């Protein structure tokens, strides 16, 4: 990225994709993308090619998260270069295909921006997921979105953790943006959740259009929640879950969890307390898909991320 007069000068974002159905049972994204594939008027913006795309059609057809393996963990360098064609797990084949169309990942030919639409059973509201604290374009976009929807809220989750970070579908793009809206059960379409996601995307595309037209965005600060660690359910020697998220913690995404606070409740009613060293902000609390990934919730800490001014080259 080059610097001119204290602004970061970035290329126009000409090619944008909107991914739905990366998890086939997360219905807001599936529904929006299907709508836009039929009629893309709503997502057109001057000077931008916006492509709506169902990433995991087989999973969507079966209304299941995935068929063989989680597509949103499948974009590893090993998978993307794996030989074997039809013998590969379905989602690995899909990852390679998506990398061909929208990538290659980390090359100059990759799409500029990919929005990946997700739902969660957690009470996270509208959440934008950021993969790098150095992505000033994304930071400015997220700042713009937050301002545009105020007083409604949209929080930013930063997952830059070397171990907990994962290879998402959107990571193929130069500027990957995750959009997670909840709470919504898998397989269910809730009208309010659907509309909230639609509004966020509208503002995101407006930002891109303004940027491409030459608008300069001054430096700004974006409040974010940085992923710290993953906390699993208490389990017995056989790996079976022996406790549930405590009623005091259930639905309290983004609220402070202090040392000594209730965290889990065993099936026979005992409380297990949080014994971390300081206050954390939990999120992804009780997400259905994470039982098998050994995650009851993740802890985060609040951080102010600084975005430089940006304008187009």
């Amino acid at each position, binding site marked *: 990225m080059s610097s001119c007069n204290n602004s970061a000068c970035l290329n126009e974002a000409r090619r944008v994709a909107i991914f739905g159905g990366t998890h086939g049972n997360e219905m807001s994204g599936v529904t929006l993308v299907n709508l836009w594939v039929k009629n893309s008027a709503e997502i057109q913006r001057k000077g931008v090619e916006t492509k709506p795309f169902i990433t995991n059609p087989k999973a969507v057809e079966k209304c299941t998260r995935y068929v063989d393996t989680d597509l949103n963990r499948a974009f590893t360098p090993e998978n993307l270069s794996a030989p074997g064609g039809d013998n590969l797990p379905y989602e690995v084949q899909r990852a390679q295909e998506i990398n061909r169309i929208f990538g290659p990942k980390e090359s100059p030919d990759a799409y500029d921006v990919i929005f990946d639409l997700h739902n969660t059973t957690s009470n996270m509201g509208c959440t934008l997921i950021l993969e790098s604290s150095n992505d000033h374009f994304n930071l400015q976009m997220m700042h713009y979105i937050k301002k545009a929807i105020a007083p409604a809220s949209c929080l930013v989750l930063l997952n830059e953790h070397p171990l907990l970070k994962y290879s998402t579908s959107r990571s193929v793009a130069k500027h990957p943006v995750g959009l997670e809206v909840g709470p919504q*059960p898998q397989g*269910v*379409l809730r009208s309010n959740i*659907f509309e909230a996601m639609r509004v966020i995307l509208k503002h995101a595309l407006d930002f891109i259009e303004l940027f491409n037209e030459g608008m300069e965005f001054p430096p700004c600060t974006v409040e974010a929640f940085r992923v710290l660690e993953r906390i699993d359910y208490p389990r017995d020697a056989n790996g079976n879950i022996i406790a549930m998220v405590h009623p005091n913690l*259930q639905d309290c995404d983004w609220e402070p969890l202090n040392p000594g606070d209730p965290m889990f409740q065993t099936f026979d009613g005992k409380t297990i307390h949080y014994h971390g060293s300081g206050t954390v902000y939990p999120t992804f609390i009780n997400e259905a898909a994470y039982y098998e990934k050994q995650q009851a919730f993740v802890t985060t800490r609040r951080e102010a991320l600084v975005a430089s001014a940006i304008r187009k080259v």
Partner: protein
Amino acid sequence: LSETKGETKYTCVVCLPRLPRVAVCGGTHGNELSGVYLVRELLKAEKKVMEKEEEEPLSVLMVLSNPRAMQQCRRYVDTDLNRCFTHAKLNGPIPDDAPYEIIRSRELNATLGPKGNPEAVDLVCDLHNTTANMGLCFIAYSDCDWICMHIFRHLQASTNNVPMRYIHFDVSNKESYSLDSVGKHGFAMEIGPQPHGVVRSNIYTAMKVGVQHMLDWVRIFNSGTIFEGGCVDVFTMIKHIDYPRDSETRNITAAIHPQVQDRDFCLLHPEDPLFQTFSGETLRYKGNEPLYPFFINECAYYEKGIALSLARKRRVMIPAIRVQTEQQQQANKQEFASEEEE
């Protein structure tokens, strides 16, 4: 009996046979996790208790109905287990490659039934969760099964913080299709809202307390206590409404309207908003009578073509009941035997 203004008032106590065997079933749908975890817990606790119980008058069978679906955390493997219990599906020849759930339903019928046979368990309580905001519901095929309705009243009286309703599906015994129809008495205990694949502590606790109260009631009933009559508000299912769908793809073209979402059991009047299309248009309820909606936006019902179900509510009087004496039970058996001979 005496009839006053269409309400039947009972002036005597109805005597009903003892209930020596009760089954509590979880995991009939493998991703409805409150029942899965509760039955697992009860099985663990049972192992500890087994040694000390000598003369436990009540035999409680804990059953995990669909282990393969549970293992995959799915509703079912081949076909919905909870639609496999009609007389037709339980009897007659089946191919070697029959759906897993058909084979399983016959195993369950052998263990808990056979359906319609005097060997069947006395009471089946089948545990379910729903994504709909229904609180705790009993779902039964009868609006005159005094056992089920007294258990419901007992739970209602013992619970403050969970809204409770009694839902009646007017289906004949011949056509009844769910697991709870295998016992002499039976009902589904359905609690929501809970996403499938998730266990919420408040929902789990409501189910645990509900099952406990039910078992307590059965023990108290078996011991000879008289339960006073009273009334129960019964919601009788009248019809289902499907989502508007695209004529070609059959994909849904609208979502439950925000004014209806989560408003299970709030009266829906003709012309009330019902759906909101993806282009923002409001579609209204076109029925000609106000009805009570439930199972609003239940995940598993998209594929069954049900966006919501609608019920009429009416107040049903239930008589006082108590357990039959040994004498009455003997007399009954002889009567039954001689009926069979005829």
